[in-house]
């Protein structure tokens, strides 16, 4: 079979036109770089998760609460019985569970003791009053807990 030049041109022309049309109507794939970038983000997130898992976990709330109260007593601070309500649940999605406590005592020793306790425990200051050399501090102690054990467990 002898091929003529025009046959070759027709064949190539058809091939070009049809492949061009196929390319034109086919869905455009997402750029490989975008997919690669997303996969890199996954890897970074996994790395971050591994780092986070190496951090110490928050303490168990009842245990930490008990230990903190012992520390307050050692400092000479008085533990005020704070009525625990359901607002001890986290108020924002990234806030861990907490119990609210309040202590008062001599301002100088109390401030120092509070300062040291805040360095040791996962706590946050809610309110602070200093009047007549007496400091009163309200705080949140963060930790993990079983919701069922909240009621009554922190009312000492």
């Amino acid at each position, binding site marked *: 079979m002898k091929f003529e030049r025009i046959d070759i041109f027709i064949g190539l022309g058809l091939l070009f*036109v049809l492949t061009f049309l196929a390319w034109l109507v086919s869905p455009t794939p997402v750029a490989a770089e975008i997919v690669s970038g997303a*996969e890199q983000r996954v890897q970074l*997130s996994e790395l971050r998760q591994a780092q*986070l898992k190496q951090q110490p976990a928050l303490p168990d709330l009842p245990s930490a609460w008990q230990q903190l109260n012992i520390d307050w007593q050692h400092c000479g601070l008085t533990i005020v019985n704070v009525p625990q309500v359901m607002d001890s649940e986290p108020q924002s999605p990234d806030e861990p569970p907490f119990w609210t406590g309040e202590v008062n005592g001599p301002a100088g020793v109390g401030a120092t003791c509070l*300062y040291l306790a805040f360095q040791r425990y996962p706590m946050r*200051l809610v309110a602070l009053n200093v009047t007549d050399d007496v400091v009163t501090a309200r705080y949140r102690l*963060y930790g993990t807990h079983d919701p069922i054990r909240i009621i009554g467990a922190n009312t000492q």
Partner: protein
Amino acid sequence: MSSRAAKGHFSLDDVHKIGGVGGIGSRNVVFISDEYAEVSRHPDGVVLQQKTASSLPSWVRDADIERARNFAAGLTTSQGSLAVGLQRSATVGANNADASEQPTRKGIAASLAALRQKKAEAAPKAVVNSGAAVYGFWQTALHNGVVDLKAPLTVAPFTDRSGLFLLTHEGRIVSSGIFRAGLIPGTEHSLDQAVVLDVSESTLRGWKVPSEPCMTSAEKLRARQRQRDTRAIRIMVSAVGSAAIALGLYLYLSSLAVERANALSAASARSAEIDSQNAEIRRLRFTSERYPDGESIIALAAVQQLYYATQSLRLEWPNILGPEFVAFEVSASPPVHELTFRHTQRVNPDGTVVYRWNKGEGALGASQ
């Protein structure tokens, strides 16, 4: 290759076994007379070769082609055989009838009888030769480069007085045909001046056949039709092949798009899932970025310093959580020594000092 002295004779009757196309193998060939002229003298002339710079177009006759094939198949006598036979009988007739130039009726009958006898003898061979191809003699000779186009007259002899002739003028082929009785039509050149090709069987066996054998006009028509059909099929195959390739490309691009979209979707979902897990893990971990709580530490460290550096420290922060509480403010006496945290002081008319510092600023720093 050629000389003025004959190096053998050949006959258009013969079936020659000569080299195949491209020198591969060999094939049985029957030569016919091909005629170089502007227009064929015969109504059944078929162009064998188009006009070129060095030659007029060459023609062959449908009748010659078919007769040559039939001859090879043992069905009839070739034109050349007939011509030679007639020539021979003419010579015999001339000898027998007072040197007359024309063969007698008796001579012709005798020669035809001789030819029939020859044909009958050749019949068994014809079966073997039935697949023989037909080529123009000059077509083949020129293809093999044995013709000197500078020579005005070249002949391929059947006998000493007959054969095929080729006339050239200034290197261009102008005429060809069969000559008989030593007379070459259309030229003043005589046979003595002709270059005589070596047409011995051994020489012819060394030739190679051209790529295209002679075809009758009907065959050419069929070939053209076949070519048209072939072309249509070829275009159809091209279209189908191109469509298949295009479809393949479309499917490939589509699958690639789907694959990448799935990969991106999976990666995004996985990323979101891990980020969510990380947020939960971060929430329940004692991480350095959250604990100790910076604001609380700043407040307590500042209060501690102020308590020991001043007298009658008073402060009331009922709720220091939330973004609206941006600065701490306390009231006390002037400091007895320099405070190390960054703050501002405002002295009240009663002599007390209001200390103010921002919630997020470090407890260490120069006082302002």
